[in-house]
């Protein structure tokens, strides 16, 4: 599979993520996106570097298995089925996502790539994914969905990192791994506390503090 095809699929998952109304579906889509992104470096022929292979495998393992496992467990214990519960409607979200993707293409156009870079889609896809993650993060009420948003945002950064990973492996890899760590462990722990304290992971309960 060509990397451009995988990247295009990633951009499509963005739209599916924004439009989904079920938490299980959202988790599934995040898994699909995570695995797709794990395959991109292999399709780009970066598999010959052992360290990149390790990071890609770690990303697939964490995003494809560990995170969905933790999140599904939380969702099951709370008996959440279709609770994405957006502040913004799905149609508007989709339109915003489309606008964001268009904007990303425009912005990426004004950022020149190093001559000879074979993947012109990488930067716009990274920005679009980042934007989608941000959109999910701010427009959904459930803590679990917000974590999905954070993961998508992180996927965008991972995608951009692929542009640099051959030249600056240490910077990119530590960044990606640490970000994953935050996503999984810390937010997982806090979600667990929220569940215990409120018997729910609705962040609407987290609205006592305001001016």
């Amino acid at each position, binding site marked *: 599979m060509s990397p451009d095809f995988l990247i295009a699929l990633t951009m499509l998952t963005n739209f599916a993520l924004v439009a989904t109304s079920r938490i299980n579906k959202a988790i599934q889509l995040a898994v699909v996106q995570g695995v797709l992104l794990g395959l991109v470096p292999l399709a780009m022929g970066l598999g010959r570097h052992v360290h990149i292979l390790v990071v890609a495998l770690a990303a697939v393992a964490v995003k494809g298995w560990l995170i969905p496992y933790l999140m599904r467990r939380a969702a099951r214990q709370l008996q959440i089925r279709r609770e994405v519960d957006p502040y913004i409607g799905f149609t508007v979200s989709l339109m915003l996502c489309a606008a964001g993707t268009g904007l990303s293409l425009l912005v990426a156009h004004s950022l020149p790539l190093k001559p000879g870079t074979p993947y012109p889609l990488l930067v716009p896809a990274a920005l679009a994914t980042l934007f989608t993650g941000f959109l999910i993060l701010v427009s959904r009420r459930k803590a679990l969905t917000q974590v999905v948003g954070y993961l998508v945002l992180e996927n965008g950064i991972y995608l951009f990192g692929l542009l640099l990973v051959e030249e600056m492996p240490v*910077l990119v890899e530590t960044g990606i791994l640490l*970000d994953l760590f*935050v*996503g999984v462990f*810390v*937010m997982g722990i806090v979600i667990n506390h929220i569940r215990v304290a409120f018997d729910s992971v609705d962040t609407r309960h987290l*609205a006592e503090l305001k*001016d």
Partner: protein
Amino acid sequence: MAWYLIALPLAAALLAFVIPAPGLRARLLPLTAVLHLIGVVFTLRHWHTLPATAWLGLDALGGWVLLVISVLFCICAFYAPAYLALRPDRDHRILSTSLLSFLGLASLLALSRHPGMVWVAMETTTLVTAPLIYFNRNRRSLEATWKYLVIGSVGIALALLGTMFIAYSAHMGGVEEPLHYTRLMAEAGHLSRPWLRAGFVLVLVGYGTKMGLAPMHTWKPDAYGETPGLVGALLAGGVTSCAFLALLRIYAVMVAAGEAAFARELFVAFGMISMTWALVFMVRQTDFKRLLAYSSVEHMGILVFGVGIGGTAARFALFHLAANALVKSVLFLSAGNIHRSYASKQIPDVTGAIRRTPVSGWLFLLGFLAITGLPPFAPFLSEFNIAAGAIGTGHFLAGFAFLLLLGGIFLAMSDTVLQVVFGTPSPQRVRTPYRDTLATTAPLIVALSLALVLGLWLPRPLQAMLDKATELLNGTSQVALVEVQP
């Protein structure tokens, strides 16, 4: 010596985690703080040239910030045992471990010579400070922790993307890893401009979120409002200073690349927005801890505003970092004492603190006067000089707006503070056993005295350090040649 500054607090954190006795564990804090401060002062005494490829080393800017953090940590650490003794019901194993780890990671951040390492240090400080906010283990503190984590993580993710953008701009210019700051600044002319600018904006938003610049500050009032005053003081003076330093490092690269004008405009704009936003939310604020949080937003605004104006204003912005940290520690710790005494942090419940807890009441009042610019305290010196610098360099509008905002903030804050301090005590308040003791007030008195001394006299070595750090920010020096040997 660099390793000592990082490893000592981390080793102490490990020790704090295994020590079972709470009293002993609490005493580990001041001990580590003093040893760390001695280490910092000792390191700063010997100046050498550092090889450009060194990964760790203190330059004037990092040294100044680390000195401020170390002094602040010392004040908080001496306050901590008495405070923790007041709350025997709370296990402080996690709190002590987190506090000490924070000191180690702040040292790592100040010493790092590579943007990636700085990012890692900043990310880990977010992780270790999150449990501090959850110290009270109730729903409100959980909410504050969730917001802190989500907003902070997004900020830090954007900062990572910004760092990668800057790395790509170097890659395009033919500058390859390892991208130490020294290297980035020396070859700044080759960096690709569009990527550098975009990277700077992302880094500004990212680290600005951690600093608490408006409009990315929304976690701040919640986090500062729900944590113990002890943690609030460290967050307001320590974590924010770390993020500011990380931002200044990239700013220095921008200046070296000749993009100073672009960066400065953004700094001035964010400074003005933060101060204005803080003023709006300070008016009729009934929660005095949230009031302090907005004051912190304001002072982060002053810091970036001063650096954005440049020249002497940049020098006094760096000086303001110390002034703000010292006075904020007085305010947060005395607010913590008052909170202990009244078991509330809301205005109608808390009035007449000066009669109930006279020392804390006076300290809170004096701290308020100091932070809003009463001479001869240190914040007056910096705020006055930043305004003078703005007007002196032709930024008339910005300079006058700055003064106007300071005046407005003084009025808005005084409304709440005067009620807390004076006011008529209502008869049916809850009575708590808390009384001011030497242990809960002496560290505050020391901090306030330091702020007073700094306002009148700055020791010569510190002046030299500030001058060097300012040269780095104003682009008037040759790339950070003078460094401290680790």
